[in-house]
């Protein structure tokens, strides 16, 4: 678990060192994994870059583990974003051997496109596609994985609901195909640049196998004009059986910034004034 301790230390250092480069207009963003597994239908702004890093530590009677997730994403085109995520893990070996296994679980690329903004009568809708590579080490995913997801976000006053529904194509070695279903809610705390988020998220195998169901509660805090911290608690509801308990803690930081060299600024000509 020394690796996990180092990861936590590195995350805290990153959070402290991040500088307020750009306004974080949406501390409320329900970004995937930050800190819940259901996401909203709103992509990064055009030319916006966001770096996210987080840890998800599990404490279960069957064995402890910790996941580290780093993601870089950008609003590459209007109303659309692309991102690259690396997910690593270190956890107790559940086969009964007294050892720790670790590795890169997967490297995942995604594209998300927002189809429409929310209006008075209909929710904001987005579609997302993911491609995950095989991993490396003892925890690595065996084969490529492809996923498609539909996302809807709808607000009722200050309360905002998000629904996700997706399908992931995976090999038998990785547990086969499964459906993703999730429902989340977020709520801003006054004008204090903090939000509370909660969700129920399920992965339902298409063939035989037990569904995996998470219940999560989290918060996002804007700590400067460019940085947001998130904290969360999660539990695998399907593993609360035979007296076994489990709890996961998530912690992460998101920073937004831009690259002036990648932005086209037209030359200034005095526009019409009268």
């Amino acid at each position: 678990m020394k690796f996990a301790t180092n990861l936590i230390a590195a995350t805290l250092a990153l959070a402290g060192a991040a500088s307020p480069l750009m306004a974080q207009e949406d501390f409320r963003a329900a970004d995937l994994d930050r800190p819940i597994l259901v996401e909203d239908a709103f992509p990064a702004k055009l030319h916006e870059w966001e770096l996210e890093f987080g840890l998800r530590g599990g404490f279960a009677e069957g064995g402890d583990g910790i996941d580290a997730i780093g993601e870089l994403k950008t609003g590459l085109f209007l109303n659309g974003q692309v991102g690259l995520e690396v997910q690593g893990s270190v956890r107790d070996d559940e086969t009964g051997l007294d050892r720790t296994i670790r590795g890169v679980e997967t490297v995942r690329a995604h594209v998300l496109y927002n189809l429409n903004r929310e209006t008075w009568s209909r929710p904001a809708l987005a579609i997302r596609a993911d491609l995950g590579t095989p991993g490396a080490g003892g925890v690595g995913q065996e084969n490529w994985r492809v996923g498609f997801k539909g996302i809807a976000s709808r607000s009722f006053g200050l309360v905002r609901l998000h629904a996700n529904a997706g399908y992931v194509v995976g090999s038998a070695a990785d547990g086969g195909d499964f459906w993703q279903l999730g429902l989340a809610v977020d709520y801003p705390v006054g004008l204090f640049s903090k939000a509370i988020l909660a969700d129920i998220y399920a992965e339902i195998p298409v063939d035989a196998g037990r569904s995996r169901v998470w219940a999560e509660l989290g918060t996002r805090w804007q700590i400067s004009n460019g940085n947001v911290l998130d904290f969360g608690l999660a539990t695998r509801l399907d593993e609360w059986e035979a007296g076994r308990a489990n709890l996961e803690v998530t912690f992460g930081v998101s920073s937004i910034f831009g690259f002036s060299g990648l932005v086209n600024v037209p030359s200034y000509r005095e526009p019409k004034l009268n």
Partner: protein
Amino acid sequence: MIIKYAKRSRMRRGAVACAGAALLFAGCVSARQRNDVFRLPASYNFAFYDTYTDAARSFYAAHYTHFGAYEILLTQGEDATDAMATFLGRVHDYVVSPPKFEPPAEIIAPNWSKLAYETGSAMDWTHMLHSQLYDILTDDRIADKQTAGNQAIAYYLSNPRSAFSTRGYGHRWMEGGGKWAGVFRRKYPEINGVLWAYHWHHAAVYEALMEPDAEQRRASLDHVIEVFTDSVLKNPPKVMPLTAEIAPRFSSLFPAAAHIFDNLHMMHDVVNDIMADPSLSRSAKEAEIERMRLNMMFAAQDSVSVPGIPAGEHHTMSPGSMRVPTQLPGGQWLPQGHPEARMASMEELRAPVPAGRSLP
């Protein structure tokens, strides 16, 4: 056989998912999107917030007042006198103790944002230009303020969906844009007074930041905040102040920005009036706000007919609002409202201006 069936089943599911996505996409192709664009990345970003944090935060109460008023008028009706009185109390609380970071419009006015997202987005985009010009004037590492400011304006104007016009419309749209003109200020003079006081404040801060020396700048800024809280907020302007009236040096340096900010402020007033007009249904308000936004955008400025200011008892012209954009012999422009700009006659101001014609 089983494998074949499984493959077929998977393909069917995939085909259904793709067809569903295609239908969804087709249904939304003509839908309105958020079209959000990130600010111009620059080294000076947030220099104003980091250097004069209290001054930067003082504007957040203004944003709260604007968007909060829209939300109340939408959710509690046009004659929400009690709600507005409570709201005014909260506004004064935020004047004293503003939020730490700028609250987005969707947090303050979640329902109104669904009605007029594009207008809220244009306002936020223009607030971004406000911030960047404050940053440029604050940051002593930026030696050539003119070039940096013009670059920020050029980037702002490159977003045609959200950039306000650079023409000096003065008060033309808010007075002559529709029969709703003046409804809000007559119904809610106290809230309106706070908003016009903040328009003064925005411009006065620019003028303070024009001081070349950092120490003078801070002293001048402190003075502006003192005058704002002790005097302007308690005795607000009687007409919507124009940027160049309050900030002539800043407006001479960036005349296009002065007009952009006046048009933003005018659009804020236009939305107030439309939202407070009980003769307009919710969908009519939505359509009217969008019509006015499209009229006042940079993209439309060569093709719209601009209304004249109607004669009437409800409008009081300040001397500044009668001064029209004026080109000096050297080619430099003095914007609308500048103390040295030409004073137009009432006949000129009352006359509508056909599309493609220059304002007098």
